[in-house]
């Protein structure tokens, strides 16, 4: 799968690429020392990690920023700060990352956090060329860093030392790192640096160790070739022909360094006075493409060999061939320069260049048809400025796409806010209607009055008050009967009637009493229910009123935010375009400069060929004159 392959490539090639200052951020390393599962105490932080662990750095960073703004990850504040620094770094925002790490270090943080912050600052410093600062940061690291970060620290330390010219210390640092994946790359770098600065013997020893190592992957084989190439030329510099041949012969015949090895082999052979053997690699080399500088040189080397073999006629012919070839190539370069100046070639290069920041892939261009833009790709990608510029340009294009998506989201939000506004407006008249038609106050008054009455009835045990109409009529009828009875003359008739009335009254009273309790309970229950309903209604009315007030406010707030964001989007777009144009211009300039340097070299070769030709003629005439 692409991403893991990318990561593996960048991890292995990072040593080479890292040393050239191209930042392939390793925020993922920050993850290897994060707390094991179960220790995430804020779910939103876990969400950030979920994206981070899948290398969705941008997504992770956005979520992290949101969560921090909303105070959702208070349990992980130092770690989150560190992580955000690492994420900014991996997205190429060195300045912001520095700011964050420095701010982090200004406060009280646990040592594990400060150690890592120092490490990242050291890396940033190194990438920007502030080597002394980088070293100071490295020195502030107190304990071994967790996981693979420690190995990275060693790499960084050796690179920084090398950059400061402290070679012997760098060699010392490498002693402790021999098991690290990147160790051979570091030894190579150090070897070359030492040869260049005069510590040739030690340097050559290092190069030899890399040049003879076992190599399993293509990257490792490539490194081994480079080491042997560098070693061979180091020997050549001291005119040690045989060791040079030995080293150069180890270079693969079908790799990116074949041409230069062939060139070097030729020189090695001439060094040990075997010019006829020098011709073998040189003639083969000359069949290659002139856009390769080794091939260009072979055009001079071949006649040189012939001259050494005293075949002056051949030599002269080959020099003339060289002059022609150089002129032709120079014209081609002119055409390329013109094409660059016209513009538009950059997109073609970008689309052709792979996403991986692997150096050394460009040799595959040998197999690609000789299209205009591929000619100079070969040269350009070796340049650091070009690589950085290319990365920026690519990032700017990605940013444009992100901006486009943001614009679309905002349009959607705009619609939503409008819809809310409309919904609120539509509801307003209805709401007013409902509120008007509800005379809550009078209802409440009635409720209160009823409650009071029932309480009074209960307090006074006013049984009769709970009577129904029918019962009241009965009671009234009974009272009338008793009244009539009172007016009757005493006698057995009256006694019987009175007895019956007394029975009826007793029954009624007993009935009332029984019913009273039940009715009172029911009345109280009813009152409670209506009381509850009324309270609910009161709440709802209040809510509706409140919503009526706050909704427009909220909606207005959202509308404002959408407007602000839209303004920002509109402001960023043109800036991306201008910066992209500036970057394009810069890349074009670098390309043209490179090509012009090429032309100058070709001109110099051509001149040397002319000079050699003239010499040959002089020698011939001088000899003839003898």
């Amino acid at each position, binding site marked *: *799968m*692409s*991403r893991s392959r*990318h990561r593996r490539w960048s991890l292995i090639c990072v040593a080479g690429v890292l040393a050239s200052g191209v930042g392939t951020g390793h925020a993922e390393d920050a993850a290897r020392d994060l707390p094991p599962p179960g220790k995430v105490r804020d779910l939103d932080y876990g969400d950030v990690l979920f994206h981070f662990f*899948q290398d969705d750095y941008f997504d992770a960073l956005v979520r992290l920023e949101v969560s921090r703004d909303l105070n959702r990850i208070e349990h992980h504040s130092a770690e989150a700060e560190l992580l955000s620094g690492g994420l900014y770094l991996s997205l190429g925002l060195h300045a912001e990352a520095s700011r964050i790490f420095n701010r982090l270090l200004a406060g009280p943080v646990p040592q594990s956090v400060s150690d890592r912050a120092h490490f990242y600052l050291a890396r940033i410093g190194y990438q920007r060329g502030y080597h002394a600062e980088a070293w100071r940061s490295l020195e502030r690291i107190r304990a071994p860093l967790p996981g693979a970060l420690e190995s990275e620290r060693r790499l960084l330390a050796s690179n920084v030392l090398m950059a400061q010219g402290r070679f012997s210390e760098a060699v010392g640092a490498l002693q402790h790192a021999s098991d690290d994946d990147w160790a051979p790359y570091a030894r190579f770098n150090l070897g070359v640096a030492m040869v260049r600065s005069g510590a040739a013997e030690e340097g050559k020893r290092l190069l030899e160790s890399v040049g003879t190592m076992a190599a399993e992957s293509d990257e490792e084989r490539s490194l081994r070739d480079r080491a042997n190439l560098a070693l061979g030329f180091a020997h050549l510099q001291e005119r040690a022909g045989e060791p040079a041949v030995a080293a150069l012969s180890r270079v693969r015949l079908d790799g990116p360094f074949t041409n230069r090895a062939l060139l070097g082999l030729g020189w090695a052979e001439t060094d040990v006075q075997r010019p006829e053997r020098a011709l073998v690699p040189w003639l083969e080399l000359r069949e290659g493409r002139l856009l390769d500088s080794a091939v260009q040189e072979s055009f001079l080397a071949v006649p040189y060999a012939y001259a050494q073999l005293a075949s002056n006629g051949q030599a002269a012919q080959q020099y003339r061939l060289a002059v022609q070839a150089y002129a032709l190539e120079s014209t081609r370069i002119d055409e390329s320069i013109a094409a660059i100046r016209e513009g538009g070639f950059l*997109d*073609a290069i970008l*689309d*052709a260049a*792979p*996403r*991986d920041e692997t150096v050394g*892939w460009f040799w*595959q261009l040998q*197999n*690609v048809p000789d299209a205009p833009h591929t000619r100079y790709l070969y040269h350009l990608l070796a340049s650091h400025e070009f690589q950085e510029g290319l990365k920026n340009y690519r990032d700017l294009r*990605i940013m444009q*796409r992100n901006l486009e*998506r943001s614009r*679309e*989201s905002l349009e*959607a*939000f705009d*619609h*939503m806010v409008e*819809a*809310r506004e409309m*919904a609120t407006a539509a*509801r307003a008249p*209805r709401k007013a209607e*409902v509120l008007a*038609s*509800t005379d809550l106050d009078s*209802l409440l008054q009635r409720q209160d009055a009823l409650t009071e009455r029932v309480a009074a009835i209960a307090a006074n045990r006013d049984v009769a008050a709970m009577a129904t109409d029918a019962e009241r009529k009965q009671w009234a009828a009974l009272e009338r009967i008793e009244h009539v009875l009172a007016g009757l003359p005493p006698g057995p008739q009256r006694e019987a009637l009175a007895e019956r009335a007394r029975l009826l009254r007793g029954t009624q009273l007993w009935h009332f009493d029984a019913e009273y309790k039940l009715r009172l309970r029911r009345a109280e229950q009813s009152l409670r229910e*209506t009381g509850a*309903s*009324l309270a*609910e*209604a009161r709440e*709802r009315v209040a809510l*509706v009123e409140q919503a009526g007030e706050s909704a427009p406010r909220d909606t207005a707030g959202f509308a404002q935010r959408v407007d602000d964001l839209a303004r920002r989007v509109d402001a960023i777009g043109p800036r991306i375009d201008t910066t992209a144009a500036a970057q394009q211009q810069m890349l074009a300039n670098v390309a043209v400069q490179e090509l012009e340097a090429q032309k100058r070299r070709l001109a110099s070769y051509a001149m040397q060929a002319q000079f050699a030709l003239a010499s040959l003629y002089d020698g011939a005439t001088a000899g003839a004159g003898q």
Partner: protein
Amino acid sequence: MQRMDRFARARRRALFETLALLAAAVAGLLVFPIVSDARPAPGSAAPDFALKATDGRNLRLSEYRGDVVVLAFWASWCGPCRDTLAQLNSLPSAAGDATPVVLGVNLEGDDARAAAVAQSLGLDFPTLLDARQSVGRLYDVDRLPLTLLLDRDGVVRGAWSQQGISGEEIARQIEELNL
């Protein structure tokens, strides 16, 4: 009193439903930024999805960002589909990094048959099983075969519907579009 309650409740429910519907629509808009009636048109982002492959792995489209992807929708009863699959099986590999990732999406709903056909064709790219046709609906597949070419950012750059496609043509398109 009771009447008012019902009134308020009903209106509140209506409000919620409207908002929910709107939210769903907008969420749809946000997930698929360019709204189109038809299948994702060239220039728009390919909707993300995850499906189980015949070998049991779950594969998610968005995890292939960074690669050029060919999405091939098929069913066993569709002849041109099988031809396309065979063609995609032996895509001419371009120089370096440009070999695209091919993902076959089977829309039949019969996993066993899909696996069998994939095996008989000797496919060496994953066959994703869309038993519920959720992805088929997502991509509005109404005719087969449907083959989509996605660039490294997951944007649809080419679409071939109702016709088979040859390996050469795919390779040529990739070349032309500088993917």
